[in-house]
């Protein structure tokens, strides 16, 4: 975990104090609502349908057990006893009172947390691979870089009033778990002649106009990271459209100029900044790395195990699906699915937070990670402790063995909470999940990502779901458009729309027809997306709309 320095701490306390002042002036009628809106958004506060919503940053998904306990405390004291994990590694509280938000921010700052820049037209919370530091395929731990970007982007004086929001993701592995190609800037650590640097992708994004990013720099030396980011942001800040908020993201600018021209503009801007004050020295890098505490692994002389053995079918399914190999022999990565039938995907109660904090202390060096798939991770568990841990999770209904499987549905809060929604998404997730409750069947279907968004803002990332579901409004009725073939991994693909939208009650069957179509066509060992890529969309169209010729 990164440990704050005194200046990090002072800064978040000062921002909390400033926000308190801004809130008071707004409540006293001394600040225009329009102006307050911009300041509160830059502090993660929305005024929603039912109550304000506060989005708390969990930078690159890392939480300490004490931070999770604090979130539990906040959810109980100021909310309704639960929080919601988003697809961007944040936690949202849906029921705080506006007057109490400054107090919540003070609470957060006491454990080195904040809500700075989790919303608004500025650089948002930076995200990274949830298995950073523990994945076997990792080239380099992306977290020190993500932290450097977090600090650099926090209250950046030049980039606080961008044309639109701006999201940066960093990945350090071959296998991309940070979805770098659907971010405004995606950074991938790569090697060239024995040194690591960044491959820079720009202009990806979902939302109304989904676009896969373009590579604008195949290799950037690490020392130049911040000057290069400044150049990209500056070109965007100056040239990005401000006349139409649907055309204001950097992806539209990159598309309008062409990736090559955009890259040239960045390059010439960068040449004026290169080697300037933001150049990162080896001393800076070393200091950053030292600010991270590292798990104190034991040297376990166990042989690597092919397949961990459970005590019964349930524990076996959990070991097979929720437990992943760790780079350190004798350890394992444990995923805690928050996709239990009957709970909104990504929701977690205060009680569960407290329990998981305790389990993290007992089994995983007091650290927890939050994933884009809205689940939690205990990343450093000794293999010999796995079954004990499983027992405890099971007692708390937290041992659902469905990681990456069809019932591990990714879903935004949708119409039940969000004022931008066209349709509800949580009940759709539940209806889909409820038809896949037989573990053997779920395992047989294998890896399928289902992503649901309540409107085209795409917070549920439906464009990159193997099956994507999007809420649309048809003359005041909730309808859902279904798409197939999205892929959020390094082979990023955007899903394609199948055809006319379905009413809510037809969605579960429509999804199941797609699943059965895959089962019909699949070759041995082939998962959903592989079959889709081989067979093509037509077979799925026929399946989705029986009786209508493709």
């Amino acid at each position: 975990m990164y440990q704050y320095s005194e200046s990090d701490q002072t800064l978040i306390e000062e921002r909390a104090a400033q926000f308190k002042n801004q809130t008071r002036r707004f409540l006293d009628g001394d600040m225009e609502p329009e102006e307050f809106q911009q300041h509160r958004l830059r502090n993660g506060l929305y005024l929603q349908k039912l109550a304000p919503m506060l989005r708390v940053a969990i930078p690159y998904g890392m939480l300490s057990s004490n931070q999770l306990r604090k979130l539990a405390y906040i959810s109980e004291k100021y909310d309704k006893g639960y929080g919601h994990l988003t697809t961007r590694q944040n936690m949202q509280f849906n029921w705080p009172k506006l007057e109490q938000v400054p107090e919540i921010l003070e609470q957060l700052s006491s454990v080195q947390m904040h809500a700075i820049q989790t919303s608004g037209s500025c650089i948002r919370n930076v995200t990274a691979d949830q298995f950073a530091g523990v994945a076997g395929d990792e080239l380099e731990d992306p977290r020190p870089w993500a932290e450097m970007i977090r600090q650099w982007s926090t209250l950046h004086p030049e980039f606080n009033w961008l044309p639109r929001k701006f999201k940066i993701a960093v990945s350090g592995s071959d296998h991309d778990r940070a979805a770098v190609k659907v971010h405004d800037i995606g950074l991938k650590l790569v090697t060239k002649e024995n040194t690591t640097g960044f491959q820079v992708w720009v202009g990806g994004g979902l939302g109304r106009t989904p676009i896969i990013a373009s590579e604008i720099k195949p290799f950037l030396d690490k020392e130049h990271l911040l000057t290069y980011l400044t150049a990209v942001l500056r070109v965007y800040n100056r040239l990005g459209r401000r006349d139409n908020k649907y055309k204001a993201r950097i992806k539209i600018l990159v598309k309008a100029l062409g990736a090559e021209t955009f890259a040239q503009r960045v390059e010439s801007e960068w040449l004026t900044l290169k080697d300037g004050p933001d150049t990162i020295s080896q001393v800076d890098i070393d200091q950053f790395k030292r600010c991270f505490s590292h798990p104190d692994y034991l040297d376990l002389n166990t042989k690597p195990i092919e397949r961990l053995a459970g005590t019964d079918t349930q524990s076996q399914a959990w070991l097979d699906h929720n437990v992943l190999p760790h780079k350190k022999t004798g350890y394992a990565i444990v995923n805690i699915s928050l996709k239990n039938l009957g709970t909104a995907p990504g929701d977690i109660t205060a009680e569960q937070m407290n329990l998981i904090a305790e389990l993290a202390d007992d089994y995983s060096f007091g650290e927890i990670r939050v994933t884009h798939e809205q689940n939690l991770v205990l990343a450093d568990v000794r293999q010999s402790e796995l079954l004990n841990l499983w027992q405890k999770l099971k007692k708390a209904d937290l041992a659902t063995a469905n990681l990456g499987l069809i019932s591990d549905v990714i879903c935004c809060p949708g119409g039940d909470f969000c004022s931008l929604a066209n349709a509800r998404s949580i009940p759709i997730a539940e209806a889909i999940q409820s038809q896949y409750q037989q573990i053997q069947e779920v395992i047989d279907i294998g890896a399928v990502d289902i992503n649901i968004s309540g409107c085209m803002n795409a917070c549920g990332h439906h464009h990159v779901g193997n099956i994507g579901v999007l809420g649309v409004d048809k003359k005041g009725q909730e309808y859902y458009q279904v798409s197939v073939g999205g892929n959020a991994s390094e082979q990023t693909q955007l899903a394609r729309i199948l055809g006319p939208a379905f009413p809510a009650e037809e969605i579960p069957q429509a999804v199941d027809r797609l699943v059965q179509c895959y089962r019909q066509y699949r070759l041995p060992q082939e998962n959903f997306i592989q079959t889709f890529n081989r067979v093509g969309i037509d077979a799925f169209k026929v399946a989705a709309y029986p009786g209508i010729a493709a």
Partner: protein
Amino acid sequence: MNKLIKPESLTSGTVMISTAEQTNQTYLAWSDYLELEETTLSKQPVLLEPDVDIDEIYQRLKPLSLIALNFPSFYEGRPYSTAAILRQRYHYQADIRAVGAVRVDQLNQMYRCGFSSFEISNDQLTDTRTAALQFFSSCQQNDSSDAPTLANNNQQLWSKAWAEPNSMIRI
């Protein structure tokens, strides 16, 4: 009525407002300036709109002792980059003024991008509002506020010091 806050009234870390004089300065639009450039009137300060390409026109601005940048709305973001470029790239040393929808809560950011004077409406300068300026004692970036016209001690106070491991706080 507008007031003008000048660089002398800014000290490090916090933007201090000690003097604020009434102003009714008028500015020339860039297009008018171009027409008058050859005449005596060209001494009048020029006001640049956010879409100006500063790289294209800088050579002609160079002799001016004041460049004003307009904020048509308080959420306009381009003048921040324009000011930063004037300071960083062109080492422009004279006054850069923020004009238009200038809000107290944003003076700190503007200052750090290299603005050195602010034309601000009277009603922004109430006590509760100016209290919003007192909040930041340090920052996380290098920035352009250490331009030569500003107090020298800014440089030291406002440049980023990356975290020193010995000052780490454990929670």
